[in-house]
């Protein structure tokens, strides 16, 4: 394929879409599908044909529109009208209102801060394109980045742009992507691999799932560019089997891309070949750790091994392997298309670009958001998130899932970037953001996360396998009102042990929720232990009932 052919496909698709006077976009990502958006789409299609409007009204399934709490979401283009909580019976009203003012009972203002405060790079196509149509993706400039990389740039030039853009790994640790790519490209080997880590396992996180469900081609293009840059011809997407829709859409996308020739052999008439295979994970959290992920793809038990040697040297089947997160790859095509300098213009000094967050918990607008690095936590929770449910008082935000920490109210004005988050004892993580209010008991929160790590520990190294059980038991007895005054010291000691002696990242970060709640919410622990009272009222102590 040549660039002219690629642009022609995009042009035809664009003209086809512009031919419709009204375009109805129905969200068909997992969140809205679970509240019957599939039936809504069907009803709208039926209604359109009943009214004989097929020639000037189109109904299209699109990716995540963001405001998952108000699903099913429907958008009317080009009017820019957004409907929330649409049901099957609303179809005729929506069609009736086309061209005129919006149906007021369903209207969801597109001007609310939830939409205006966001900046979309990774999610630029989410809610716009049909995730199962490659033409739609090409119409939005898709695969141009890959063309530029293969036909105009050199592998070193590609890495240079990534480094210049200052892109950092979006999986959690924030390792500079350019540096990782350089490491793999410098290793000498005839066979190399590119792996996309889509084993998103944090409780409450759904960024990677949404990207794969809404815009799968973006990830494929990013992987192909990475393959060209590091000299790899094979790619694997390791995605958890609990994401059946994402798996289906990625598989469809791979098939379509191969048919068009933007994946496979001699891409864009060059000598570059790149194949992508989907591998399903069986739902072990530890398989998100890169060495465990490698073991799992190879067909072995998913347990990590000590590093070094790092996968960039010794990865899949012993070959150099580049492992990046879904969101990292999704950032690559726009960087190549628009240049590293363009990307570096967004964000803070050390954290460039934007970050996708899955906003969850006790906040009004739960959903998928994307904000520039450096956005204040307060803006995310109160402007984009629309504040706390039922006007209750904000207490804390948990970032980074079970590896992260709780950020209390005093840091609401901190900037969301890798360094600032590390400074307050949390991590960026993959982007899960769980908001907690005064009715959340922080000891209970710590117990929840350590229980998660306890059951997800692979059992290989002793500190993580046994230490997490010990920490959990102590927290359990505190929440049952059986805590002893020495338990605080015991918790600190166990956390220090597990953090410093565990083999992989799971164990090394597992104590973080406990440590950060001990740090910022010691009074709650004290209340549980000394006064046998749960300030948030979530823990129930049997013996207090008896004494009453």
């Amino acid at each position, binding site marked *: 394929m040549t660039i002219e052919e690629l642009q022609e496909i995009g042009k035809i698709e664009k003209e086809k879409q512009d031919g419709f006077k009204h375009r109805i976009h129905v969200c068909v990502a997992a969140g809205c599908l679970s509240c019957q958006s599939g039936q809504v789409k069907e009803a709208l299609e039926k209604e359109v044909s009943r009214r004989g409007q097929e020639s000037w009204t189109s109904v299209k399934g699109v990716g995540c529109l963001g405001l998952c709490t108000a699903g099913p979401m429907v958008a009317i283009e080009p009017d820019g009208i957004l409907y929330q909580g649409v049901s099957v019976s609303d179809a005729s009203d929506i069609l009736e209102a086309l061209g005129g003012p919006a149906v007021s009972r369903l209207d969801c203002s597109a001007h609310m801060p939830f939409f205006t405060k966001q900046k979309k790079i990774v999610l630029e196509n989410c809610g716009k394109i049909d995730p199962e149509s490659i033409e739609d993706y090409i119409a939005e400039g898709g695969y141009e980045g890959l063309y530029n990389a293969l036909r105009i740039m050199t592998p070193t030039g590609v890495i240079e742009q990534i480094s210049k853009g200052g892109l950092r790994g979006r999986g959690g640790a924030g390792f500079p992507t350019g540096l990782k790519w350089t490491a793999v490209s410098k290793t000498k080997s005839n066979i190399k691999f590119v792996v996309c880590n889509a084993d998103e396992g944090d409780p409450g996180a759904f960024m990677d799932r949404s990207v794969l469900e809404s815009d799968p081609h973006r990830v494929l293009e990013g992987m192909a560019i990475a393959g060209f840059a590091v000299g790899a011809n094979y790619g694997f997407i390791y995605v958890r089997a609990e994401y059946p829709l994402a798996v289906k859409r990625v598989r469809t996308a791979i098939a379509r891309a191969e048919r068009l020739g933007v994946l496979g052999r001699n891409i864009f008439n060059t000598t570059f070949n790149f194949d992508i295979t989907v591998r399903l994970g069986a739902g072990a959290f530890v398989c998100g750790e890169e060495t465990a992920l490698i073991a799992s793809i190879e067909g072995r038990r998913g347990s990590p091994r000590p590093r070094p040697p790092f996968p960039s040297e010794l990865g899949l089947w012993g070959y150099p392997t580049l492992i990046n997160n879904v969101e990292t790859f999704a950032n690559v095509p726009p960087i190549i298309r628009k240049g590293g300098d363009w990307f570096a213009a967004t964000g803070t000094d050390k954290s460039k670009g934007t970050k996708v967050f899955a906003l969850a918990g006790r906040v009004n607008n739960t959903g998928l958001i994307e904000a520039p690095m450096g956005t204040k936590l307060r803006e995310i929770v109160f402007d984009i998130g629309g504040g706390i449910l039922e006007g209750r008082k904000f207490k804390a935000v948990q970032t980074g899932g079970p590896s992260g920490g709780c950020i209390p109210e005093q840091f609401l004005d901190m900037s969301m970037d890798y360094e600032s988050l590390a400074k307050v004892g949390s991590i960026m993580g993959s982007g899960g953001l769980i908001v907690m209010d005064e009715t959340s008991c922080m000891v209970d929160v710590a117990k929840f996360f350590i229980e998660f790590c306890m059951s997800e520990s692979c059992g290989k190294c002793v500190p993580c396998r046994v230490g997490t059980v010990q920490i959990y038991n102590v927290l359990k007895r505190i929440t049952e009102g059986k805590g002893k005054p020495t338990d605080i010291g015991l918790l600190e000691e166990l956390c220090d042990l597990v953090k410093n002696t*565990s083999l992989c990242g799971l164990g090394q970060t597992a104590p973080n929720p406990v440590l950060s709640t001990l740090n910022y919410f010691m009074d709650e622990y004290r209340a549980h232990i000394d006064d046998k009272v749960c300030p948030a009222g979530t823990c129930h102590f049997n013996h207090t009932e008896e004494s009453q």
Partner: protein
Amino acid sequence: MRYPSFLQRTADRADVQPVRVLTFSINGVTVSAREDETILTVARQNGISIPTLCHLDGLSERGACRLCIVEIKGSPKLSPACVTLPRQDMEIITHSDRVMDYRRKILELLFTERNHVCSVCVSNGHCDLQALTVELGMTHVHYDYLHPQQMVDASHERFSVDHNRCVLCQRCVRVCDEIEGAHTWDVMGRGHLAKVITDLNEPWGESTTCTGCGKCVQVCPTGALSEKGKSVAEMTKKRLFLPYLKLMRGEEER
């Protein structure tokens, strides 16, 4: 062996075996090592004893028990000596207060995990885990015992496995796979629910892959795997076959 180009002429000489040797220090003593030798190997060559549990000469390394962690000057992280390769001028401290404290606590965790009751154990007095408590000066356990319910499988005609004594070091798994080539043993379950199993979690006596060689019993550090007919403190392990095999394989490699 790849060398930078300016050294390639020397490296091309046919009469020398190019093996890179480097020097570093352990506890302030300068030692030398081949670049493919681990810190543990070099330390033991120099008479420095680092406690280990999952490591066994002749089996592959796992870096899992975390008892051999050492401090490397300039690095905040602790590194397992059994899998870490030395670098030139590295400074290693093997017995600082910090690592000794961690080792003791890890050992305590192991004792809380399952039911290690030495006084009624076949391996009492010949047990690696017991020996470690002496070496590390562990006098008592200050964490709560978990007291899990564990099974005993005595279905094999000559051996039995007592999961109460298992420390999940996987020596049995490795010796069966790497030395005997049968791969009868493996691990099922995650975290503290992990357990060594024979075949697909079938009784050992019904295993179709087990050759009955007993290597797993001999390498087991505790009384988890034992020969039948042995009473308390009677089970001594015979592991001489491993250094012998290692020597033979070493000959092959050269």
